[in-house]
């Protein structure tokens, strides 16, 4: 090791990889474009309504990924650590919403109908708002305590230590949920007005395309939350403090910013967004179990990297991009859906070859990295 460290870098090998990587990227890109051409112009198997359905699926899941990805990016921007337990915060939000809907469904309201209407069917709007509030609150609280218990004591430790602590916290939360709520898969009890699968019908080429209420709710709410977050970070005092802590903790502290409090608030905000994503996930997909946050969490993390980790608009863009690629990719390239994730990750790698710090990522200084 010692001698290897001192020997000068081999220039030839460096140049080789520098040339090889873009060539590899271009080759794969060429292959993808060729497949795309085949499917779109030669075979023409799929008509407009199929593409619209796929687009809708992609936008909805992309919105959820984007919300979760923001949580990764916010925390990374400030602490330069990957909060691997973020997916579990999503799961906690989904469970909170689940129990709220179960509660509102079990309350009957006085009405002329027989059998009497449950609260969630009689007041769907109020119960959905309540579910989001509860989901976001509980998830925000768990985000707050996650930071306090798992990360704060390790603030001064080397960078890898909090990472391992995050993985441990992730396992802990998963298993705690499994013991508390049983490993059983549960179904969200949506209010009847926005039951899954119901929606507006569009007619395209004489084929019905259903735009589900839950899908529209998910997409619209994720956009609203993202805009809200962006305004908060850019315009408010808290946002300004967060940006200050992100760019330099020590100087921010010298300027009278309570760094610990800002970090806590960052976790609260990212937890709240994750909670909202969890409730959306439940409302739209209907499934909730202890493992539900894991996969979206990992996907959102890659989306955050794709967009440029630490960059908020980048996370939004990365999430949407990943969702769309997942939904459209296999069909557009005529490849089996089993390889959906492979396609998404290959495209990601190509983007990272040409833009190593992500789509909107900035080149970080050595000190930050």
């Amino acid at each position, binding site marked *: 090791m010692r001698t290897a460290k001192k020997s000068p870098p081999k220039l030839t090998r460096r140049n080789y990889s520098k040339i090889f990587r873009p060539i590899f990227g271009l080759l794969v890109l060429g292959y993808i474009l060729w497949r795309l051409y085949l499917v779109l112009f030669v075979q023409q198997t799929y008509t407009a309504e199929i593409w619209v359905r796929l687009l809708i699926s992609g936008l909805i899941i992309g919105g959820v990924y984007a919300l979760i990805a923001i949580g990764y990016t916010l925390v990374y921007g400030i602490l330069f650590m990957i909060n691997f337990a973020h997916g579990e915060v999503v799961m906690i939000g989904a469970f909170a919403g689940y129990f709220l809907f179960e509660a509102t469904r079990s309350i009957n309201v006085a009405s002329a109908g027989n059998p009497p209407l449950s609260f969630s069917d009689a007041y769907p709007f109020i119960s959905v708002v309540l579910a989001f509030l509860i989901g976001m609150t509980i998830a925000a609280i768990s985000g707050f305590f996650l930071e306090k218990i798992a990360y704060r004591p390790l603030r001064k430790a080397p960078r890898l230590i909090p990472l391992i602590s995050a993985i441990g916290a992730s396992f802990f939360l998963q298993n705690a949920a499994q013991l508390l709520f049983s490993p059983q898969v549960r179904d969200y009890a949506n209010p009847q007005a926005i039951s899954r699968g119901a929606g507006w019908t569009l007619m395209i080429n004489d084929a019905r395309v259903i735009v589900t209420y839950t899908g529209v709710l998910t997409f619209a709410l994720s956009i609203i939350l993202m805009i809200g977050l962006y305004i908060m970070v850019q315009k408010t005092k808290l946002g300004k403090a967060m940006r200050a802590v992100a760019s330099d903790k020590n100087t921010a502290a010298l300027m009278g910013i309570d760094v610990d409090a800002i970090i806590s608030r960052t976790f609260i905000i990212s937890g709240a967004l994750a909670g909202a994503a969890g409730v959306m996930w439940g409302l739209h997909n*209907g499934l909730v179990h202890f493992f539900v946050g894991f996969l979206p969490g990992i996907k959102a993390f890659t989306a955050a990297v794709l967009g440029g980790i630490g960059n908020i608009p980048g996370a939004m863009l990365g999430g949407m991009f990943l969702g769309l690629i997942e939904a459209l990719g296999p069909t557009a390239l005529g490849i089996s*859906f089993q390889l959906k994730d492979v396609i998404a990750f290959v495209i990601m790698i190509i983007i990272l070859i040409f833009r190593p710090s992500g789509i909107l990522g900035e080149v970080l200084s050595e000190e930050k990295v």
Partner: protein
Amino acid sequence: MKFRRLFILLIVFVMILAACTPAAEEPVVEEPVVEEPAGDDTSAICDADDFGCAVVAPGQTIKIGMSSPMTGGNAAFGIDAEQAGLIAVADAGEFMGFQFELVAEDDGGTPEGGAAVANLFAADQTVVGVAGHLFSGASFAAMPIYEEVGIPMLSPSATNPDLTRQGSRIMNRVPFTDEAQGEAAAAFMFNELGFRRVAFLHDGQDYGKGLAEIAAATFESLGGEVVELMGITPGEADYSPVLSTIAAQSPDALYFGGYTQEGVVLVNNMGTAGMEDVIFFGCDGTFGADFLARTGANGEGTFHATPRVPPETPEKDAFDAAYTERWGQAPGELSPFTWNSYDTTTMLISVVKEIAMLGADGSLYIPRGAMVDGVRGLTNYVGISGTYTCFPDGDCNVEGPTFWIVEDGDFVAVN
């Protein structure tokens, strides 16, 4: 400094890798060393046996292993199998002063989990047989480990045809094979239901993929058109993109080889994906109360399969009553393999009772080789789910499935 960081990262990475493949590469535990009771028959028999004897000391229990997914989306299968097995063990009572014990472990239904559980059982002197594994993928991974130490497997539900085609001495099972089910399903769709264009989906795992491929091949040979044969990623919460793509081919039906978790999501997504007129045809992996509860109105008119329905016998009624009383739910509700799980456990216990010997030191000696052969040699065993004779390849049942349609929120047998 950078090298050191890289080095630490490498170590962490290796540790994660090691954690991800639990014990899969670990050397299999040595054959149990038999403590020889001097001047006894048992020692001669144990010495002559291919694998030696399992020794159960006084105060220990005779353990029957059970390995199945008990967490995650398919947990119902494992919980059901454990509940049925526990009743089988309770029914077995005391034997020569020893109690039977069911050791149910969670293998997640995955090959890695299957190998980990198999290593655990192989290391335990007192595990004499395994009433599992439930899933084909886990069974494949576990077989070579049991083969080394001579623990017989008797699976209530692993149906991949290749499981019994590898010349394994220890692998046995009671359900029909995927081959029998796939062929029967294809014939049923073509002849009885009159489908001509069918899309075949599977979850890419040992069980689902094998089943869907056999069904598709049979369907094609009958003269039907296979419009799509495709795998999906298991464990997702939204399959509408793949369904939308299949909808473009306008098939009559969608055949799915896989488990409830994915089956439920597929059926629930079919409406929004433009497949509301397409009929969903599932398999024995999608049958169960879970499917009904989680698909609701979307599940109406879907087809499923089960092992042949157990005939009504006093023994079955007694089991049903015991199961309902102990677990608060009817057998067959969680999974279609309740009765099979009870039977495989009792079959293993019956072989143990036949060959076990009480040694001079008060320990129970169970020759492992004889145990393996005893399970393979089961003839006309009358269980609650049918009469079983094990064939030399390890299949103990060659009958085809019963098909069911969902009508008014309940399963109705159609053949």
